[in-house]
């Protein structure tokens, strides 16, 4: 990076300090929007801001070019203070074509900045986007500040004579746009220049062209003075340590690998591709050097079947899927409950029912995880709160599965799975230790003779002489594990299986409460709504409102102190991206008059939505 050409333009224009910003990149699926967003994210993280991102892509792989269905988006919020969500509404929208403008303009803040690629605003593209008139000319965008940039032409000019085809030149325009955004927010470009060099290392022409496009966009802002001034967002006061960016799916996969490495129990993943969970399969299949065995099965049932077999044979067994896949696995989950085998079932929730909204987020599979099986069939349920928290909860799910000899549901969602945040990398030596319990001696071994502390049965591996045993889905006799149809035994076993899952409550730490332990309103959330709820509560508390919140990561069993916590408040509100599933559970279990705050749009909560609803509940007090 010593070459003078690689340095960002030394600006002579004024800089305005701002606290935070929300930017959304939007364009056709083929415009490189996700890549552009990730580059902006990396650079922003290196600049020391706190941040949160939200990619939003279409379900179709390549929807018709230029249509609303094909619009892909990437939103990032970054700030000099703590950031918990990708932001409600963009301050800046970068729209690569008319469809991207149309799909996103409604959400841009009044007075916000809209940068459009005006080259694409021709009759054909306007028609595909459903515009009757050109919105750049008909005055319909008067509430925002529009900056029309001929991205295509400017990129072509910049790259002229480099020997690129028209298509290759066209593909560099996202870096021109990124260069502009780096100028606007006074960001260094080294990280992206380095990334380009590594990405295209086999083709020097592409390295030069993409780097040049990035510089050209940056220089264009300075020389054309299109923004007048630029912004600076100072470093955020972040907990010291070594950080990386991580998505929820990556964090989940790393949590599983870590649990295996620390416990010394090798990992087996049986999985079938499904959006938005497939990235966990992809990630785990890369880590064979950690003895991770991944098996892409013929269907969802075979995926969990193989995992149950692996668990029987002594592995740390996983199956990863989304709601429709869980529906298919249901009978096998019951088998794992009956045979009391350790197994983690990951559900990266998406919009339902049926195929629903595969690429959108929702929290509507909680009751499925809690109750969606035949018979009395208790399964512990955990949920991650943030992308980084997916690591901790994946790890915890494995620990509980092994310690209590039980299948465990881990719920994340599309928002957490694809969203990213800076992650304080854990120190491996400080991860909680766990492993297999020692076996009783051969003479004393009985398959369903339980550990009184955990009610877990022993886990003798096939191949061990003297521990030959048969298990299966038919009801077991207590202690011996032989088949039994005895009525009293059945009731005893049903109650024992429930008691075992309830025992897990002894491992749940005291619930953290954000705010006072007494007050007017307590918000209770779970899963990926953590950021929105917490941001709203911060704002409400700053405004002097009597609001506190707790965020549940253990949903079965629930934290033992939850009932007492709720008693300290006049009203309990449960925000969820469903029709009120946790709400039902809380009302049934604690007989509290809690109320729901529900959204079912396939989109996360906006902070303002929660804030407004809580304000209304407080009656303006």
């Amino acid at each position, binding site marked *: 990076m010593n070459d003078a050409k690689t340095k960002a333009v030394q600006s002579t224009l004024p800089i305005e300090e701002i606290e935070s910003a929300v930017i959304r990149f939007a364009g056709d699926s083929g415009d490189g929007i996700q890549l552009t967003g990730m580059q902006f994210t990396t650079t922003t993280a290196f600049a020391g801001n706190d941040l949160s991102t939200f990619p939003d892509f279409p379900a179709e792989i390549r929807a018709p070019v230029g249509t609303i269905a094909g619009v892909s988006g990437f939103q990032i919020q970054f700030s000099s203070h703590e950031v918990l969500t990708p932001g409600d509404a963009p301050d800046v929208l970068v729209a690569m074509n008319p469809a991207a403008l149309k799909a996103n303009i409604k959400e841009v803040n009044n007075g916000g900045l809209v940068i459009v690629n005006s080259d694409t605003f021709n009759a054909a593209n306007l028609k595909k986007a459903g515009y009757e008139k050109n919105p750049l000319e008909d005055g319909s965008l008067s509430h925002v500040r529009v900056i029309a940039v001929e991205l295509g032409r400017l990129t072509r000019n910049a790259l002229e004579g480099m020997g690129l085809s028209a298509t290759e030149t066209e593909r560099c325009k996202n870096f021109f746009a990124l260069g502009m955004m780096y100028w606007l927010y006074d960001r260094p470009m080294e990280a992206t220049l380095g990334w380009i060099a590594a990405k295209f290392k086999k083709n020097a022409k592409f390295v030069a062209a993409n780097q040049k496009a990035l510089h050209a966009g940056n220089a264009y802002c300075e020389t054309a003075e299109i923004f007048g001034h630029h912004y600076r967002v100072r470093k955020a006061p972040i907990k010291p340590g*070594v950080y990386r960016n991580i998505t929820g799916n990556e964090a989940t996969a790393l949590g599983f690998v*870590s649990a295996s*490495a620390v416990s010394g129990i090798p990992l087996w993943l*049986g999985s079938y591709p499904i959006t938005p969970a497939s990235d966990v399969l992809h990630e785990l299949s890369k880590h064979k050097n950690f*003895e991770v065995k991944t098996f892409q099965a013929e269907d969802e049932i075979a995926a969990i*079947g193989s995992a149950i*077999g692996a668990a029987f044979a002594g592995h740390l067994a996983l199956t990863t899927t989304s709601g429709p896949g869980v529906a298919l696995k249901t009978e096998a989950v019951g088998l794992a409950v009956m045979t009391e085998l350790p197994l983690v079932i990951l559900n990266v929730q998406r919009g339902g029912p049926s195929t629903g909204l595969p690429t959108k987020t929702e929290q509507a599979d909680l009751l499925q995880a809690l109750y969606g099986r035949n018979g009395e069939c208790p399964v512990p349920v955990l949920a991650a709160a943030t992308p980084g928290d997916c690591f901790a909860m994946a790890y915890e799910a494995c620990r509980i599965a092994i310690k209590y000899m039980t299948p465990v549901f881990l719920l994340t969602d599309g928002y957490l799975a694809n969203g990213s945040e800076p992650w304080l990398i854990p120190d491996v030596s400080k991860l909680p230790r766990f492993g297999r319990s020692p076996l009783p001696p051969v003479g004393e071994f009985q398959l369903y003779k339980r550990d009184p502390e955990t009610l877990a049965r022993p886990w003798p591996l096939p*191949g061990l*002489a003297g521990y030959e045993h048969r*298990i299966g889905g038919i009801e077991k006799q207590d202690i011996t594990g032989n088949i039994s149809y005895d009525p009293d035994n059945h009731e005893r076993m049903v109650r024992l299986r429930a008691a075992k899952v309830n025992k897990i409550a002894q491992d749940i730490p005291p619930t953290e409460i954000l705010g006072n332990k007494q007050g007017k309103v307590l918000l209770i959330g779970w899963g990926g709504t953590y950021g929105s709820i917490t941001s709203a509560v911060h704002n409400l508390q700053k405004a002097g409102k009597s609001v506190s919140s707790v965020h549940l990561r253990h949903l079965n069993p629930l934290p033992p102190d939850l009932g007492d916590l709720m008693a300290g408040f006049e009203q309990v509100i449960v925000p969820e991206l469903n029709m009120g599933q946790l709400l039902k559970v809380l009302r049934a279990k604690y007989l509290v008059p809690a109320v729901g705050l529900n959204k079912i749009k396939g989109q996360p909560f906006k902070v303002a939505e929660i804030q407004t609803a809580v304000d209304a509940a407080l009656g303006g007090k």
Partner: protein
Amino acid sequence: MGDMKNEFETLPAAGPMAQSSKDFKSDQMVRWCPGCGDFAILATVQKVLPTLGIPREKFVFVSGIGCSSRFPYYMNTFGFHSIHGRAPTIATGIKCTNPEMQVWVVTGDGDGLSIGGNHLIHALRRNVDIKILLFNNRIYGLTKGQYSPTSEIGKKTKSSPMGTIDIPLNPVAVALASEASFVARAVDTDLPFLSDVLTRAARHQGSVFVEIFQNCIVFNDGAFDSMAAKEVREEKMLKLAHGQPMIFGAKKDKGIRLNGLEPEVVSFDPAKPPKDLLVHDERANSSTLAQLLAHMAEPVPEGVFRDVSRPALHELMHAQIRQAKAAAPADLQKLLNGPETWSVEAEGTL
């Protein structure tokens, strides 16, 4: 073997030679209907296993749902009685994670070819080193008498009072089409032959599929009498032998030859068999000959249709793991750090 057991039975951890069929019998009462063909198959398996030189704790029997699927409870080995149709998936997980186990799957025509058909074909094509025994009685027994995917067309059952209207599957043809590396057929009443087939099945490395004609005495008695009854068997069934011309009949006076693409029966003087009889080749690269035999209705072939060698799934999986380990040591902290990190200094230095 039976004579040797008394010398060794006081030594629990003794070598494999110490084992007898008794060592493979569990303490659970066998609950099949009196006269069920399953008894003979169970006894044959318990007789074959001690001859393999493998201690009993290295065996696991996996089953799904159905009469045949009770099998694991009667074996004093490791066992898993799972859910309907899914035994091959569970067996796959066991074999890949614990390759020292010899894994057997016991299934039936409903469990293996109806609800579990998808798992069966994929386990076979992947060459999972498991031995699948499909007890074919052409009926649903445990649910008390509905037609199965191998019931002959027109069969009247509780769920088809006017006769079935769907074409049955041919289990051996399905297994061959799925690229199983060992495919065989035997009958529950010819125990020495069944014993030979099971011994070869046990020794094969890779996906094994054995169809066993099994009589359901309650709901489909005599389903195979027309070909497998003692008095007609030699005329109606053909015992396959690798490298041998296909000759059958009590007097060895009939054989099979090809007429175009169709096999046909020829009769001859046993002293002068024709030179153009088909010669069995179970090791052929292509499964064409085996498929041809699988579809032959009279005589019905039994024995080994196909026995070819190719790497088993667990071998390939473990080879990739060894390769990955050699290429990059497992450094967990490095993995967590990922490709790009940055440091945040203590507050106050910002």
